[in-house]
């Protein structure tokens, strides 16, 4: 890997972001804790009624994971924008879309993956049955990269504006309504013993498409954001 070559650049970006995540490994734990906390808040608000909780379990866990990811999105480009390293990335002699793809990958690895690991536990605290739990994990494995990619495009669009987290939530939530519907649909079908493969397949198809389009869109959006 010659310095400055494409693979070296990809590796440099990926390594940098994972290293930063590791330096702040406390921050990796935080979305997980956040999800844990939001999930525990629901029984307090709804009352300790096991039946009721089991009925809302799948939906609550999905929404919670979504919210936790949402909060972490702000850290995708903003710190880089504020300390000037995003400009350095944009001025580098490498395709920006690919570099951003690496950043998104690193971000998914460090935020979504821990959430997926913890999700089954959250679900069973709310008494989701075990077989639905497996489908929940599958749904999350497809839905979270999708959310990461969608989120990245929007973060890029809002990067130039000052306010962030909230604006992002606002823009991302309508986009994730379909994702939530399909994922929650799969889980609730599994819970009721119905076939659940179709919604997952739809999500998979969307993921394949976005894997290519999102980094490109991201790059375009960032160029606009920095220009303004």
């Amino acid at each position, binding site marked *: 890997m010659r310095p400055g070559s494409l693979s070296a650049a990809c590796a*440099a970006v990926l390594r940098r972001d994972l290293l930063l995540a590791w330096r702040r490994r406390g921050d990796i734990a935080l979305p997980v804790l956040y999800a844990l906390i939001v999930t525990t808040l629901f029984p307090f608000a709804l009352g300790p009624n096991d039946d009721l909780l089991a009925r809302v379990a799948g939906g609550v866990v999905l929404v919670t994971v979504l919210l936790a990811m949402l909060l972490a999105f702000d850290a995708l480009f903003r710190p880089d924008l504020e300390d000037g390293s995003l400009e350095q990335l944009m001025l580098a002699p490498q395709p920006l879309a690919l570099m951003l793809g690496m950043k998104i990958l690193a971000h998914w690895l460090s935020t979504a993956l821990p959430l997926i690991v913890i999700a089954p536990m959250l679900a069973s605290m709310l008494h989701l049955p075990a077989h639905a739990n497996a489908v929940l994990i599958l749904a999350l494995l497809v839905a979270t990269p999708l959310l990461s990619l969608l989120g990245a495009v929007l973060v890029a669009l809002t990067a130039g504006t000052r306010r962030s987290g909230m604006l992002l939530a606002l823009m991302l939530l309508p986009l994730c309504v379909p994702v939530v519907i399909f994922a929650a649909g799969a889980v609730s079908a599994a819970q009721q013993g119905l076939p659940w493969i179709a919604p997952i397949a739809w999500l998979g198809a969307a993921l394949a498409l976005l894997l290519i389009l999102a980094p490109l869109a991201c790059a375009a959006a960032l160029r606009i954001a920095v*220009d303004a």
Partner: protein
Amino acid sequence: MTTENPPTALLEAEGLTFLRQDEPVFGPLDFALCAGEVLLVEGDNGSGKTTLMRVIVGLLRADAGELRLDGAALDRELSRGRILFLAHHLGLKADLSPLENLRVAVGLYGCREAITPEQALHTVGLQGYEHEPVRQLSAGQKKRSALARLLLVPADIWLLDEPFANLDREGIALVNRLIERHADAGGAVMVTSHGAVTFLHGEPRRLRLSA
């Protein structure tokens, strides 16, 4: 050092204008930057020096005029990596050490021959601080970490926005030496400063912005 009859200009601007809300931030500017030359951009606070650099580097879009690189219209795709920009914001990650920061820059921009990030840090006077997180460095030490990038990255045009701010005298001398050496080796440098540029041989060319 200043070549008055340039062979071909590395970077040329013709009628370059940038507007903010239809008022020019800097007027139509014409200048040429040749290999081996240093151009000192002067102007009062708020006269548009930073803005000019951001336009050249492609972070802002000029409203009129043309930029040429090696005589041909500037193509951002081809020209990337040729120009190195040191901005007010230094582009350092506060959680990484100076060394790790430089390694990223090298991965992205490539590396000159016969120099390593460690040596570059040594040159800018940061030996002993290689593994300290940048967050814990003083204002001047941060600036020095950013300057080390100049030594490593194989770009021939340097745009330096107030490289002297926050540096002590030895640091100022260091930057002057770096600029001179780069110009002598056939590079071109554009610097903004409020009066700390002093060279051993010759005077830099000046471009005065007035707002």
